[in-house]
């Protein structure tokens, strides 16, 4: 691996190399920063680099590794975070023009602090859709984030930079956020593993909010095992997040690799029918069928009222986000991305009974969906209707009907996060993997609340069976 070239080593492989003395955290950091410098002009994934901090963390990691002090699988491993995570000393721009006038963050977000505690090396902050209200990865202020598998395509949003940076081989993992699909969508478009945990599982403290009653944080990576390692490091009780559930830490990585089937042989696996079988592209259908076959899913389950759930999520999202941004809308409306601004302006005018009914429906829907998990353990659904659309594309044809692309992207993710269920995107390439112009698509694995372990084990099984895998970009990327 030459200095500055992309690396597609997993966290596990990097940890092995670091422990074996084949490389050092400082050398790995130099390689990573060189790669970012070489590729970011083409991908536009990073908005801020934290080289000085990273150097200090890398030196500390090397000291721990060489002296035999306590360390983890993440010690010395570089990563980045969506630029709505607070990084001390860095202004948290949240994809906006307005927030970059704020003072630098005084302390790290819980997730960043947790990864520092695990010895990981924070190299910078990553591009995103403005204020996370986005599924495309397009950004009027920082420029559009490009899909490394085809730089003319969307990376997906709103965690565009995290997905693009990991897919391009700049970093092995990144942290994103997911309110209605913002981890799962870019993971689908960029061919990666992405975990949205149970609502309330991981602390969101120090993360600029979007919709408080729907926001989650989670990891994006190139392997299921790496997802497990990062997720484990992010667990922990944090009184700064008022909705974090009172749950003990439940490590998922130790359960990986136990048995050839990752211990999922007895899991009752089904495919989401009805709404989740409508408007899909042929390739999304193929991906779901391949994952279903590999996991032995022969039956369908109907998630009740999924369309209404999406409508309710839409109302709550518009209302809460408009309330959050009201003062900014009053003072600096013209400094928003125009599409974002007009959505927020409309959202500020929603009658209260509509939102109350949406929140009441959410309670009803949660009860109905929870009942499903008395009979099933794992549900398979598409992550996105199609592969990544072109940057700037405004419409897409689904089932023969031309529809706005921004409405279509979150079709299958929104009803799942609305119920707070943990869900993981796994990447599918199919038989055309490696062919010119061929792009990946994601499949969602969905489980009962707090069953992240099952998701990660199922994803690990699919990866080991070569059904789902993250692949490097076919064409070399250049600035």
């Amino acid at each position: 691996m030459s200095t500055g070239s992309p690396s597609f080593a997993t966290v596990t492989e990097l940890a092995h190399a670091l422990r074996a003395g084949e490389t050092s955290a400082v050398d790995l950091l130099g390689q990573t920063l060189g790669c970012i410098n070489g590729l970011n002009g083409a991908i536009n994934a990073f908005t801020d680099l934290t080289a000085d901090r990273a150097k200090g963390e890398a030196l500390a990691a090397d000291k721990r590794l060489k002296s035999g002090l306590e360390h983890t699988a993440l010690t010395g491993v570089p990563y980045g975070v969506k630029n709505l995570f607070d990084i001390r000393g860095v202004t948290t721009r949240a994809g906006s023009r307005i927030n970059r006038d704020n003072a630098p963050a005084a302390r790290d977000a819980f997730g960043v602090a947790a990864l520092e505690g695990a010895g990981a090396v924070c190299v910078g902050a990553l591009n995103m859709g403005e204020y996370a209200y986005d599924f495309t990865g397009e950004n009027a202020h920082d420029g559009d984030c490009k899909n490394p598998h085809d730089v003319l395509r969307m990376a997906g949003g709103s965690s565009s930079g995290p997905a693009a940076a990991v897919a391009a081989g700049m970093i092995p993992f990144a942290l994103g956020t997911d309110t209605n699909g913002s981890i799962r969508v870019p993971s689908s478009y960029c061919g990666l593993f992405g975990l949205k945990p149970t609502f309330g599982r991981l602390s969101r403290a120090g993360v600029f909010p979007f919709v408080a009653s729907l926001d989650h944080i989670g990891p994006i990576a190139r392997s299921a095992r790496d997802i497990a390692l990062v997720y484990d490091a992010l667990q922990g009780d944090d009184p700064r997040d008022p909705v974090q559930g009172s749950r003990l830490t439940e490590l998922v990585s130790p359960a990986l690799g136990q048995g050839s089937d990752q211990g999922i042989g007895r899991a009752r696996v089904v495919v989401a029918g009805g709404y989740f079988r409508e408007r899909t592209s042929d390739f999304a259908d193929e991906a779901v069928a391949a994952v279903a076959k590999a996991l032995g899913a022969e039956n369908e389950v109907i998630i009740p009222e999924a369309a209404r759930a999406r409508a309710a999520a839409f109302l709550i999202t518009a209302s809460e986000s408009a309330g959050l941004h009201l003062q900014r809308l009053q003072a600096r409306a013209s400094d928003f991305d125009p599409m974002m601004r007009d959505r927020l302006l409309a959202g500020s005018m929603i009658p209260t009974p509509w939102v109350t009914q949406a929140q009441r429906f959410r309670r009803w829907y949660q009860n109905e969906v929870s009942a499903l998990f008395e009979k099933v353990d794992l549900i398979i659904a598409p992550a996105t209707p199609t592969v990544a659309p072109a940057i700037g594309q405004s419409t897409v044809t689904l089932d023969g009907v031309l529809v706005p692309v921004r409405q279509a992207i979150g079709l299958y993710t929104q009803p799942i996060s609305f119920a707070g269920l943990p869900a993981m995107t796994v990447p599918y390439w199919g038989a055309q993997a490696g062919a010119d112009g061929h792009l990946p698509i994601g499949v969602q694995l969905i489980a009962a609340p707090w069953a992240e372990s099952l998701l990660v084990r199922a994803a690990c099984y699919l990866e080991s069976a070569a059904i789902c895998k993250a692949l490097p970009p076919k064409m070399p990327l250049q600035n």
Partner: protein
Amino acid sequence: MSKRAPDKSDSTSVIPVARVSAFATANSSAFATANHAQEMAAILGLSIRPEWEDSVVVNLKLLELAAEQVLAIDLPDDIEPAVVFLAT
């Protein structure tokens, strides 16, 4: 397991472009109109420039359609909103 045709009763999951483009001028409701947007903006201390109006009205119409779908379900009176608050 087979692909399904979209449920005709699901009118708002994705709305055809042809229908969306008509929202700005349809005046099909009292909610999604430029007049209503301007009145609400005045109440909220917001300014909507004339060139923003069509887009705001389209967004109001999308919200109204979502609300129609959400309001159409009868829920038992004892179903509480899912907003989270825990006394500590």
